[in-house]
Structures are given as C-alpha cells and as structure tokens.
C-alpha cells in the first residue's frame, strides 16, 4: 500500500544501522581479516590466503569435536523438542494452576549458565551430590568425572533440565492460540487424543516449533559454559565441544589466524543448518 511518501522517516532507521554495524559487521570483518593473515605481533602480519582454512578443515582434533558437536545438538533436539511439547500439553490451560505451572517451568531459564554448571557439578557428584549419590545408591555405577558415557549423559541431562522449559513455554503459547472451536469440532468428530494432537495441535504448533528448533539448535551448537564448568571438557576430550576447542585455540594457544578461520567456518555451519531446518519445515507440507 503506498502512503504519502515522506523520506524523512529513513533517519529513524539510522540508529539501527549504526548498531548493526558496530555489533555485527565490524567485529565480523575483523575476524575475516585475521583469518587470511598470519600475525606475529603488532605490525607483523602476512597475507596467507586460504591457508588457515585448509589447515582447520583437515585438523583431526577439530573434526572430532565437530562430530561430537553434531551428536550433542542432535541429541538435544531429539529429546527436548518432544519433551517440551509433552510438558506443554500436560500444563493446565488456565487459572491459578496454570500460572503456578508456568512459573515452575520457567525457573531453570532464569538461572545463569555458569551457575547451572556449578549446580550440576555438585548435584551429580557421587559423594555429596544428591543425584549422583542416589544413582550410586540404587546400584548403578555412576561417575561423570571418570566415565565418558556418564559425562555425556550428565551434560545432556543438564541441558535438558535447563532448556526444555524454553521449548515447553513456546509450545504452551502456541497451544493457547488454538481456538476452542477446533477442539470442540474434533470432539464432535470423535477424534482420539492422538488424532487431535496429530491433526490439530501439531500443525498449528508448526511456526513456534520452527523457532524452538532453530533456537535450540543454535544454542546447543554453541554450548560452552555449562560443560566447561561441569566437566572441563573431560574426561579426556569426550565432552569438549566446538566452542571450547575454539576458545582453547584462540586464547590458550593464541593461534588467532586458525581461530578466525575456524570461527568463520563455525558461523557458516550454523547459518547453513539453520537455513536447512527452516526451509525443510516451512516447505514440508506445501501444496504440490
């Protein structure tokens, strides 16, 4: 719809331009700049072209951590999305119970990441942690600092505890937006609970699920603080995920060129996969 043109409105957009420039473009250009140079010290930078990228892509340590990362993000999505939907479905629709439930579910989201790591570090300990102690007590040998599988499960469990509420809240709001008439119609059509879920709730949750999947993928793919606090990446490097590898590289070894190249690849992977998810879901049931 064309209104009366008044180009002065563009000035209002200017602050956003500046903000985006400072927050995203300029830092990103710095990284791009680093990724194609070898820097020895101030004023001692040499252009190396795609050298760093080649090196990064063939680095076995990085490859291993990339695979680990994919496995982790995959597991996170597979558990948290269905679980979140389930929790949302079970939450009361309204009233005081509904409000209470909302608050209870939202609590883990309010805790800072490093605190979450600390909580679980203690909670899961076999000697003084309630969780670790209880598991050992019922006869299962559990030690997340020593056993790879246990460490993995603990990191995963921590993430599920921390972030499933987000999925649940998103789905809850999506469910609330479904008009009552649909449930009434379904009941009159004698639809089973499963049919109601499959044909009414799920299709109408689609848009919030896209957001949930994207958020959870991006977040889990960049997970850093919680496993760092909980396991420090161990035992061995079994819970060392991409961002931790990157940090070690950039800060621990001060390998800026490789780290920059790696960052860019990392960024592109996130972008690519997010785009894939998005198009896959939005095109899933387009009319032929």
């Amino acid at each position, binding site marked *: 719809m*064309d209104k009366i043109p008044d180009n002065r409105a563009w000035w209002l957009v200017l602050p956003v331009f500046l903000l985006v420039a400072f927050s995203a473009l300029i830092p990103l250009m710095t990284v791009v700049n680093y990724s194609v140079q070898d820097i020895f010290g101030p004023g001692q930078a040499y252009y190396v072209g795609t050298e760093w990228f080649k090196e990064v892509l063939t680095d076995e340590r990085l490859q291993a951590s990339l695979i680990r990362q994919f496995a982790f993000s995959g597991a996170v999505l597979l558990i948290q999305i269905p679980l979140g939907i389930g929790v949302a479905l079970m939450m009361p629709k309204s009233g005081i119970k509904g409000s209470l439930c909302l608050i209870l579910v939202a609590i883990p989201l309010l805790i800072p990441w490093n605190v979450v790591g600390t909580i679980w570090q203690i909670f899961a300990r076999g000697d003084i942690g309630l969780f670790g102690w209880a598991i050992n007590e019922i006869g299962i040998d559990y030690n997340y600092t020593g056993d790879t599988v246990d460490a993995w499960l603990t990191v995963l469990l921590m993430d599920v505890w921390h972030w499933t509420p987000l999925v649940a809240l998103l789905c809850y709001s999506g469910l609330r937006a479904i008009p009552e008439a649909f449930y009434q119609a379904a009941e009159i059509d004698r639809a089973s609970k499963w049919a109601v879920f499959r044909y009414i709730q799920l299709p109408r949750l689609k848009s919030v699920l896209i957001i949930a999947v994207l958020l959870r993928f991006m977040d889990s793919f960049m997970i850093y603080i919680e496993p760092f606090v909980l396991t420090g990446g161990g035992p061995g490097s079994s819970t060392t995920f991409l961002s931790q590898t990157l940090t070690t590289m950039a800060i621990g070894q001060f390998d800026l060129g490789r780290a920059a190249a790696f960052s860019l690849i990392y960024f592109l992977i996130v972008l690519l996969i997010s785009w894939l998810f998005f198009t896959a879901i939005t095109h899933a049931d387009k009319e032929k």
Partner: protein
Amino acid sequence: MSLMLENLSRTVDGVDYVRDANLTFEAGSFNVLLGRTLAGKTSMMRLMAGLDKPTEGRVLYNGEDVTGQSVQRRNISMIYQQFINYPTLSVYENIASPLRLAKMPPPEIDRRVRETASMLQIEPLLKRYPLELSGGQQQRTAMARALVKDATLILFDEPLVNLDYKLREELRAELRDLFRERQCIAVYATTEANEALALGGTTTLLHEGRVVQNGPVMDVYRAPVNTLAAQLFSEPPMNIIRGRVTDTEVTFDEHTHHELTQELAKLPPGDYWFGIRPSHITLAPGVGDDLEMSMEVALSEISGSETFMHVENSHFEMVLQLMGVHQHHTGAPLKIYLPMSKLFVFDGNEQLVHTPSRISGGAG
C-alpha cells in the same frame, strides 16, 4: 464546502481498485456508495480521506487540490465495520479523545461529549469500558467519537454489517435523523440495496472500481441506466430476461410470448433485455396484460412479512418478492405472472431504453 473527485484512479499491481471516478459531494449531503464486496467502495473512501494516493486524478476540497495532503491535516472521521475503540479508556474518554487531541477546553469537551452521547443514546454508559458493552453499544461509541469533533467529512465503511439485523434497523434510522441538520459531507458504503434506500440521499453505484450510476436515490432506483445498475440496486436483484420484439409480439422463448403493448410497440424490432422487479411478479393474473410463465420452485426464503421465492425452468431463473408467507417445496410447479406494464427494457448493449410508464423520470 464540497468534495470533488476528478478523473480519480487507483491501480495496484495492475488491478483497478478505482477507475476514472468523477464525483462531487456537497456539504450537508448524505451519500451512499453501493456495490458488492470488492466493488471499490473502501478504496474510494481511502482516497477521499487521503489514506491512499491516487494513481491518477485529483481530490479537490472547496476547489483546492488536497491530493497529496496527509490525513492528519484534513478534518475527517471514519467509522469501520469492526468496532474500534480504545479498550483502556472509558466510553466518556473514548468520545472525548479527538477533542483532547485538539486541545479543546475541558468544559467544552464535557458539553460536547454529553451532547453527542445523548444523541446516540449511550449517556448512561459513559463510565463503562468498551469491552463491557454489547456490539451495538460499542459501535455507537465509535460513531459518537467520529461525530463529536465536527469533521467536515465523515466516512462510514459498512458500519452496521457486524450487528444483529434489528439493531441495524434502529441505528440506520437514527443515522438518517442525525445527519438531517449537519453541515458535513457524509459518505456511507454498503453492499445492501435496502440500506441505500432506507438511508436516502444520493446513491452512487459502484462495480469493479467504476461508477455505474450516480444521482438522487429514487432517480437511480427508478431509472437504472443499464442492466448492471438495475441488478445492483435491487435486493433481491432485478430479474433480467432476453427477448425479441417483432412487428406483432415480443417473444421470450417458444412457450413464452405476448402481443405488443402500446408502450412496447414504440420499440424498433430487435433483441432486447427485459427487466422486472421481484416485487412486481405475482402468483395470480392481475388486471392488466400479464406474461404467464411456468416455473418450478427452487427455494422459498421467508423473512416473516415477505417471501423471496426463487423459481426456475429450463430457460429462466427468477426471484419473486411476495407479501406474507409462501411455503412451497423445492420442485413444485408454479405459474407466475409478469405485468407487461412493469417491464424495464434495455437494448442489445444493456442500456436502458424504456422505464415503466407510470413512473415519471428520464428514460434513455
């Protein structure tokens, strides 16, 4: 004070919303835009208000070109289908809001709000909030807000469509009375011919963005310029059938023909379209010349005081508007009678050539 649309057009993505409109609205007039959904009523109102820019043409206000001027600078009120009120403000504050914006002194605001509220019979509701009101009361509030500020142009975009028909009847009658003394230009869009008739004033028939006919409501109603106008301005639509005039008679199909009446004898022989209003067809022969047709009942629609009977045969489909309740089963055979003296005649290009003689008014 007058509002003039000059060769006004608006095209969006190759679709004509309004095409070449030339209209003049005088102060103190009540103007009805009548047309089906998507006829261009809303688009035309938006152009008048300055909410949209015309692709071509000008909007003149008292002879002054206001085409590019923004809405805020014109003194306009608009009332929509949806009941639009500020939910967090009381009815009183809702009505007062345009005056507060105009920085009017509070005693004057109070006087005007109460006056307008009493005019629309919502004075007892002034302390309530919009969401506590019924649909009719909400729309009255929206109307009060539009009327309170003495706008020079008030636009109504199908304001009654979301109300129960009884409420519609009442508000329509009130509106007519409200505007009798006002010196503003009122423009009212509707899809219903009966509403246009009830509101009176001037009627502009719109179809697919074009002005089909424009004039005082009864002139337009009694002498529709073409078959389209005849059908638009009749609820249910005027029945139009094809026929041929020869030297001796007029033929509609092999079973349906009639000798020429005095009036029809004046027509040169050839093919014509004949129109008859649903209310003029009867189920029993009348006193004058009638054309008898054998039909089958498709559906009787009963409004209480009258029945709209849809009938059809292999050649024709027609609607009758009958007094009282007439229940017939679908498929029941029925003879209908069309009084020859009530026929409208349109030429091969569907332009009016003859109106029923009893009614004075320009034919042709």
